[in-house]
């Protein structure tokens, strides 16, 4: 029993001693001294969109981020010189705000960033910074000097503007402005004042003399100054007029003379149009012309006339004199509408029947009946061959005029479709033609089997095409307006059947006919609104 009491007594004494030594509230405890604010604090700052080489006007966005801070922030104070302009009481480290630089005098100013810790006692309470950064910026409210647009070029299908940049250092941005109808609208903003080009990807390279007008407005955020203006165009308008532009029998392009021979539909006059240096129209009236030969040679072109005694005439393309080929007097049928000159001084005439004549003597060498009597017909010659093709009344005839006879090598019927504007393409040894409504067909000249056909788009309707080397230029009518355009010419590489599209030229109106002048890389395009355009195919490259 006494042992138990002794243990208990010992425990009580020890417990009491423990409480006395550890718990008693007899003296004031040691004070906590916070030495953290006096230590070196670390961090980095990165300003965005602030360039010490620039001057600023108007409202300025100040944006910076703090990183690698050795403490967490309770407030960030921004001073300009000694003036407190903004306080952010948050722990976020990315700060973004606007100041109005106009409220400060022009000149150099210091932006001071004071960073206050959130855990440093009176330093936090009184906003004493534990880390500071500064940056110099220059305020300048003067009106910026305008840029000068030096010109433009076509870059692909879009205009690329060039200008000399403004010499002012307070440029905030350039506004690219475009006018297509009397007033300018801003189409883009350029924030880098050193940029001196702009590619307007929304402006399609369409053929026109005043597609759009541009100016570059220089702004310092408050004031603006306008540049000079530049009009963009593509192509040169030619003031030509075709009286009839669909039929080959009524219009002939004389490539080596830059001339078009065009027969008015009322047969009243023949117009010779030069398109090289502006239109010079030569008119020969009163000869009751009916059709032009679909080819020419030695600067002469043959013409079928309505008058029996003057059935066939020859037009000298140098002096525009007409000579009656009297050996054909009263020989050609009234219905003779198409004519082609073959090798060996033969002519092939398409009237109510096919006829082969000797040009010198006017002797009828052979004739063959044709099927149908309607559509005049189009010829397609295979160069240096006596074989050619005739399309008439939905029939295609493959004909050989070897010797003094006409041989029908093959005749095929193309019901309800037809093929127009056939051309022989030596590069691939194919005959190409437009198959309405939207196909271009390619035929093998020996078998006259269709090799392949191509459609650019379901709603692209080919109206005319030209061949130049291994490039095919096809003019289309667009059934639905694309970029407010109704016509397009597309250049294809036809070295393979993939018909790779190389380049496009948009037109405001549907395409009627294409012509090549003698000069390389130029193209003349006739549109449905009777506008005629001369394109430099190298422009913008």
């Amino acid at each position, binding site marked *: 029993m006494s042992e138990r009491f002794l243990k208990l007594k010992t425990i009580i004494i020890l417990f*009491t001693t423990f409480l006395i030594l550890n718990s008693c509230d007899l003296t004031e*405890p040691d004070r906590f001294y*916070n030495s953290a604010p006096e230590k070196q604090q670390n961090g980095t700052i990165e300003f965005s969109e602030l360039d010490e080489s620039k001057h600023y006007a108007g409202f300025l966005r100040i944006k910076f981020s703090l990183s690698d801070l050795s403490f967490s922030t309770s407030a960030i104070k921004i001073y300009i010189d000694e003036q407190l302009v903004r306080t952010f009481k948050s722990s976020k480290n990315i700060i973004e705000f606007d100041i109005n630089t106009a409220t400060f005098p022009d000149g150099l100013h210091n932006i001071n960033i004071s960073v206050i810790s959130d855990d440093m*006692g009176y330093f936090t309470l009184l906003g004493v910074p534990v880390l500071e950064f500064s940056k110099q910026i220059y305020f300048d409210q003067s009106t910026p000097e305008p840029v000068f647009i030096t010109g433009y070029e076509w870059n692909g299908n879009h205009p690329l503007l060039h200008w000399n940049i403004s010499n002012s250092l307070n440029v905030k941005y350039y506004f690219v402005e475009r006018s297509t109808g009397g007033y300018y609208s801003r189409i883009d903003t350029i924030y880098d004042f050193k940029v001196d080009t702009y590619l307007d990807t929304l402006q399609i390279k369409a053929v026109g003399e005043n597609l759009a007008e541009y100016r570059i407005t220089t702004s310092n955020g408050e004031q603006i100054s306008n540049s000079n203006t530049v009009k963009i165009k593509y192509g040169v308008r030619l003031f030509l007029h075709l009286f009839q532009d669909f039929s080959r029998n009524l219009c002939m392009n004389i490539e080596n003379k830059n001339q078009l021979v065009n027969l008015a539909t009322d047969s009243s006059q023949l117009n010779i149009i030069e398109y090289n240096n502006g239109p010079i129209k030569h008119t020969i009236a009163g000869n009751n012309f009916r059709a032009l030969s679909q080819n020419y040679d030695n600067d002469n072109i043959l013409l079928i006339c309505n008058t029996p005694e003057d059935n066939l005439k020859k037009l000298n393309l140098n002096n525009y004199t007409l000579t009656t080929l009297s050996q054909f007097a009263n020989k050609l049928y009234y219905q003779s509408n198409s004519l082609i000159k073959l090798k060996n001084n033969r002519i092939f005439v398409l009237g109510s029947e096919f006829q082969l004549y000797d040009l010198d003597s006017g002797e009828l060498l052979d004739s063959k009946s044709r099927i149908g009597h309607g559509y005049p017909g189009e010829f397609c010659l295979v160069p240096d061959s006596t074989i050619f093709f005739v399309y008439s009344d939905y029939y295609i005839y493959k004909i050989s005029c070897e010797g003094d006879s006409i041989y029908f090598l093959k005749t095929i019927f193309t019901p309800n479709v037809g093929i127009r504007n056939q051309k022989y393409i030596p590069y691939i040894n194919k005959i190409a033609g437009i198959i309405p409504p939207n196909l271009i067909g390619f035929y093998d000249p020996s078998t006259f089997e269709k090799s392949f056909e191509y459609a650019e788009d379901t709603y692209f309707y080919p109206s005319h095409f030209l061949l130049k080397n291994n490039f095919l230029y096809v003019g289309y009518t667009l059934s639905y307006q694309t970029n407010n355009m109704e016509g397009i010419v597309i250049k294809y590489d036809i070295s393979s059947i993939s018909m790779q599209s190389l380049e496009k030229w948009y037109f405001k109106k549907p395409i009627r006919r294409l012509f090549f002048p003698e000069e390389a890389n130029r193209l003349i395009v006739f549109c449905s609104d009777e506008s005629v355009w001369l394109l430099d195919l190298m422009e913008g490259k």
Partner: protein
Amino acid sequence: MKIVQIIFVITLLVLFTYNCSIAQDSSKVVNNYPFYIGLASGLTTLTLTDVNKLFDDVVMVYKQAGFPIKIQRQNPGNIIFHLSASKDLSDVSTLGFRLQHTWTSSYALYSDAIGDLDLISKLSVSKFDVYYQLNLTDRFEPLLASLQFYSGFLSFNYNLTTESNVPLLPELNSKSRLYFNKIIPCFELLVFFKYKFGIVGLSTSAGFRIASTSKVYAHSSQDDIPYDEGEIDLDVNLTGLVCLVGLEIAL
């Protein structure tokens, strides 16, 4: 809380009545029961849940303001002074009264290169109460185990001061005070062990005190000017351990 107090009082009265009846039955022995005067000192702990929470809340306000303030001490157990007078009513019961005084405090003292900020709370409790003791062991044994039931009043005095001292910016110097000062009824149940040493009258005792709680309301002042802080109340909870060493003289 009132229900608990009522139950406590009723329990105390029942025990007292029971003990008196035992005393009447053994009248021969009553005259042998002396009257004691006791003087003791020791240690006591106080639960003070609400008081500590109030201090924590005030500290938190300053932490949120950016002060990495630390609590150096928060209402530890402290010295208690004890004066009692009692008379055994029987072998198993004693009736007496008691005077007690204790105090404790909390400190959160902060300094940096600019100034000082001191959060100090001081609490003192003085009690006067009547008690009834029910012995659980033979009262002549050196180690006495008993239950004590107390009923009386206590004076609760609590001051929480916040003082800032910024030498460079005297306008920031301030001292605010939140104080509670009230006499409130108190009831206690003390599980008590007392050990009598061989030396006459010297004893040591320890126990666990289960105290009733009471609500007190605050007064405030700023730089000694009272102002209305709004109603802040505390539940005073004095439950805790108590250890005493003292003299008990039989008269």
